[in-house]
């Protein structure tokens, strides 16, 4: 070995857990215990490095930290802890982070038990062939039921009781033992140091000084700054600027060898050039096959983003371009709406991804945004045999040209105490969900009726999950249910386009695709809501819901009858004028749909309505 660690002393692992089960806290404890970071330096949680993540309590981007650990066997090990994004929108990113490991710590909160993402993550790790170390966390909590949760882990995943470890990440109990078990159970990497380089990119971030920094797991060969590199999927060539690892701050090193985890500064301009899942190889003697599993990012959810003030269009475009530097999954193209003016149709991995992007645009770039209701990508088969992707109801061809509309379906798993089964069933079926199966996660007499945790699986159109589904699920189960979903494929549906007309003019931003048998109900509800939201005008305003020219629901907003200051305030004309000026100011901030004037906030509410 010219450089680096002997592979037998390397352990690459990650922690997988449902949100808030203590992943970050445990990571901190590990850093502390291995002396990678002193307790004093650890005011901040290290692995989550964006503000936004902290606030949402999730981890958007993975990263990796190298620790040195002297085990009880007296040997010094190099432990690479690879962080995984904690949300379902980032399943693919999680799978790539897992692919960089040989083992995973499956962390479960002793007071909560297995949740939907525990399950999802477990199966992802299993798919990658990782050794999984089950750990019950938060045993210090008064509400902790470690024994029960351990049993649940055995019942659900088939662990043996003696495999399960118990820790308190917060207080440190059991963490030492955990490190020992990681060293003992997780196998060392087994790459071929002499083969041509193959390094898996499991994350990448844009750095203004060094360009895109790729987080890599070197599988075969070695990586240094002397040799030009190539990305096998995108075909990009690059001259590496720096190679190193995180400890937890970036530490340059001569090289990364087979089995090691670290980073390479690529000098590339956007993360789109260096995508998660891609394989880095030598440019002069490339590997013959890339590592398996690469997939370009695929947006699933689409929405129009518009500047509230049309003059901010340019700033919005700049901001989207900046975000795109660091977010290969973000997709956008210009779009123009009658009601909203110029803006962008953006594609996101999922709802959370969409929320995050919107929030960053507003917070980091100070933009004021209007967002249309989210939509999925439909596939429309036309009568002349074409298949068109449709990301916004406004893009639909005329009804006579449509042979079939297909929509994305998801596999949905929900875990909930069994007393809420009825509530969940009702919610899911009211949204066209189909029941697949049900399984109790807990057996045995110790668990009371109504408290037994059950896994429910469904198939459901993604479109039905977009608005308010998660909130509804939470509220109907008093916060107990957790969920996870994944894409299964496209299926034809009986869908129709519902047009909303305000003052006889169709409003593109309000059009939507609905199941034919719900069209009337949805149209009725929308029209009534609009009637409440749109203030009275100087003339009667008809509000209609229509399918292909046939009106199915109608309301009329009666003309405003009175707006007059009756009183005579002595000679206080100043005051009268102030009141009028206030009204005039208000008028300036109105949005217009034809002649109909709508205050900004009502307009926003109206965009959020959709269903």
């Amino acid at each position: 070995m010219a450089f680096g660690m002997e592979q037998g002393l390397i352990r690459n692992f990650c922690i997988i857990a449902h949100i808030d089960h203590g992943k970050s806290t445990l990571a901190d404890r590990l850093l502390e215990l291995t002396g990678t970071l002193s307790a004093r330096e650890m005011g901040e949680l290290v692995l989550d490095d964006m503000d936004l993540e902290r606030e949402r309590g999730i981890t958007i981007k993975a990263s990796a930290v190298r620790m040195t650990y002297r085990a009880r066997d007296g040997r010094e090990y190099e432990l690479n802890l690879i962080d995984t994004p904690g949300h379902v929108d980032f399943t693919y990113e999680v799978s790539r982070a897992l692919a960089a490991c040989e083992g995973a710590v499956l962390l479960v909160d002793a007071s909560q038990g297995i949740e939907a993402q525990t399950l999802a993550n477990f199966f992802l790790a299993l798919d990658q062939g990782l050794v999984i170390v089950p750990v019950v966390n938060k045993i210090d909590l008064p509400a902790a039921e470690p024994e029960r949760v351990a049993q649940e882990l055995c019942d659900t995943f088939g662990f043996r009781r003696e495999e399960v470890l118990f820790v308190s990440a917060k207080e440190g109990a059991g963490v030492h033992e955990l490190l020992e078990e990681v060293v003992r159970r997780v196998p060392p990497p087994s790459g071929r140091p002499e083969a041509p380089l193959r390094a898996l990119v499991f994350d990448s971030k844009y750095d203004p000084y060094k360009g895109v920094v790729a987080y890599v797991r070197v599988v075969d060969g070695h990586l240094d700054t002397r040799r030009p590199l190539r990305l096998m999927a995108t075909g990009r060539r690059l001259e590496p600027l720096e190679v190193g690892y995180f400890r937890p701050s970036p530490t340059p090193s001569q090289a990364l060898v087979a089995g090691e985890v670290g980073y390479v500064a690529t000098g590339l301009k956007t993360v789109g050039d260096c995508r998660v899942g891609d394989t880095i190889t030598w440019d002069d003697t490339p590997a013959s096959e890339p590592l398996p599993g690469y997939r370009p990012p695929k947006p699933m959810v689409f929405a129009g983003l518009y500047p509230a003030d049309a003059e901010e269009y340019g700033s919005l475009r700049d901001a989207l371009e900046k975000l795109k530097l660091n977010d290969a999954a973000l997709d956008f193209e210009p779009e123009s709406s009658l009601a909203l003016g110029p803006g962008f149709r953006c594609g996101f991995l999922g709802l959370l991804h969409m929320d995050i992007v919107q929030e960053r645009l507003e917070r980091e770039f100070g933009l004021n945004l209007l967002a249309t209701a989210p939509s999925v990508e439909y596939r429309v088969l036309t009568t002349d045999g074409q298949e068109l992707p449709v990301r916004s109801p406004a893009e639909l061809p005329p009804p006579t040209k449509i042979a079939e509309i297909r929509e994305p379906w998801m596999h949905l798993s929900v875990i909930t105490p069994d007393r809420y089964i009825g509530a969940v069933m009702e919610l899911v079926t009211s949204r066209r969900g189909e029941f697949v199966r049900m399984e109790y996660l807990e057996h045995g007499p110790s668990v009371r009726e109504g408290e037994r945790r059950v896994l429910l699986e469904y198939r459901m159109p993604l479109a039905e999950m977009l608005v308010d589904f998660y909130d509804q699920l939470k509220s109907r189960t008093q916060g107990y249910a957790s969920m996870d979903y994944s894409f299964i494929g496209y299926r034809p549906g009986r869908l129709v386009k519902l047009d909303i007309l305000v003052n006889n003019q169709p409003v593109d931003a309000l059009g939507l695709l609905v199941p034919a048998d719900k069209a009337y109900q949805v149209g009725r509800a929308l029209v009534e809501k609009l009637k409440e939201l749109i203030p009275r005008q100087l003339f009667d305003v008809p509000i209609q819901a229509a399918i292909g020219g046939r009106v199915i629901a109608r309301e009329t907003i009666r003309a405003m009858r009175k707006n007059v200051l009756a009183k005579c305030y002595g000679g206080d004309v100043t005051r009268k004028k102030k009141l009028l000026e206030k009204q005039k100011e208000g008028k300036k901030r109105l949005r217009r749909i034809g002649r109909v004037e709508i205050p900004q906030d009502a307009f926003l509410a109206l965009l959020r309505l959709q269903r």
Partner: protein
Amino acid sequence: MKGRGGPISLYVHIPFCELKCAYCDFNSYAGLEELMGPYVDAVCREAALWSQAMGRLAVRTLFFGGGTPSLLPIPLMERLLGALGKHFHFLPGCEVTLEANPGTVGLQYLKGLAMLGFNRLSLGVQSFQDDELQALDRLHTARQAEEAFGWAREAGFRSINLDLIYGLPEQPLERWQATLERAIDLGPDHLSLYALTVEEGTKLAYQVARGLVPPPDDDAQAEMLEWSLERMAAAGYEHYEISNWARPGHRCQHNLAYWECRPYLGLGAGAHSCLPAGDGWVRFWNVYSPRRYIEALAASAGPPADVVAGHVPLSMPQVAGGEVVDLDGAMSEFLIMGLRLSEGVSLEEFRRRFGRELLEAFAGPVTELSDLGLVEERDGRLRLTRRGLLLANEVFVRLL
């Protein structure tokens, strides 16, 4: 500020009330009675300051508003009128109005007012339904209002106005109709009918915000106004301003001065004035608090340094602020105020005052408003249509 003569209208603000009414956001206070004497002295001093600064101005209308001016005892009233007579020149036929609340006036008092020269009385009746009066925190009954009216006639008032409010929360049309019928039965010479509005900071606003009382209903108020227009016409009253009706010869000359943008001077706490200046006018106002008003005038020894024509007379100790309204502002105010009048504004008068053509200066908005059916131009005058009357603010904001 001498020159630019011509008679003015004079307003005197009396900020005292027995109790603050639920809807009221006027500059009026309950429980300050002990300030009445010093307050009257201060107003007398203010009158003196003006005559020192501008000479003895000719006055064509005098209006005592409030608050509740009828709370001032006759001797104080006499002192005040004496001082005004000394510092201003009241033209023959001058309209002299006093606002009064039923329940605060008796026959003797009214006779005293008539003797002092008041020739017009405005009674704040508001409603002829006792439960409604209570809800508004008015201290009098319907019966007392009728009594006060009778006494006023007996005391010799030939011109009497009644103020009424319609569109109270949950008030059915019939109840308003009953109030107006009782008012018409009394045969007043003038009626002001105001739609109840919820003003910030009032008890009513609090009640509405808390959901204790529903907000007044615009549609109901519109319906009441429309009914009232018919009913008042049938009863022989001319509708001459959005909220005002009069028998022939009884229009309120003082308020017309506001709507026609003629000069006026306001004395007393929070009173507003408007005097000609350059191409437009200057408007200013006194300190609002009666106590501070009294202090300001007590502190001032001699005549004010210099009151410069065309500027806000900030050298006057009681003046709190003001603004100069330039030509553009003046033209727009002229329209906004003038369109309140049923006869609207005269294109000729506009040309005479501003040297511009109204229909050119406001071509855009006037076209839009005509298209919307809110204003019409006929016989050399621009006026609100019947629909525009109810939507006057929509008209005004477009003229701003």
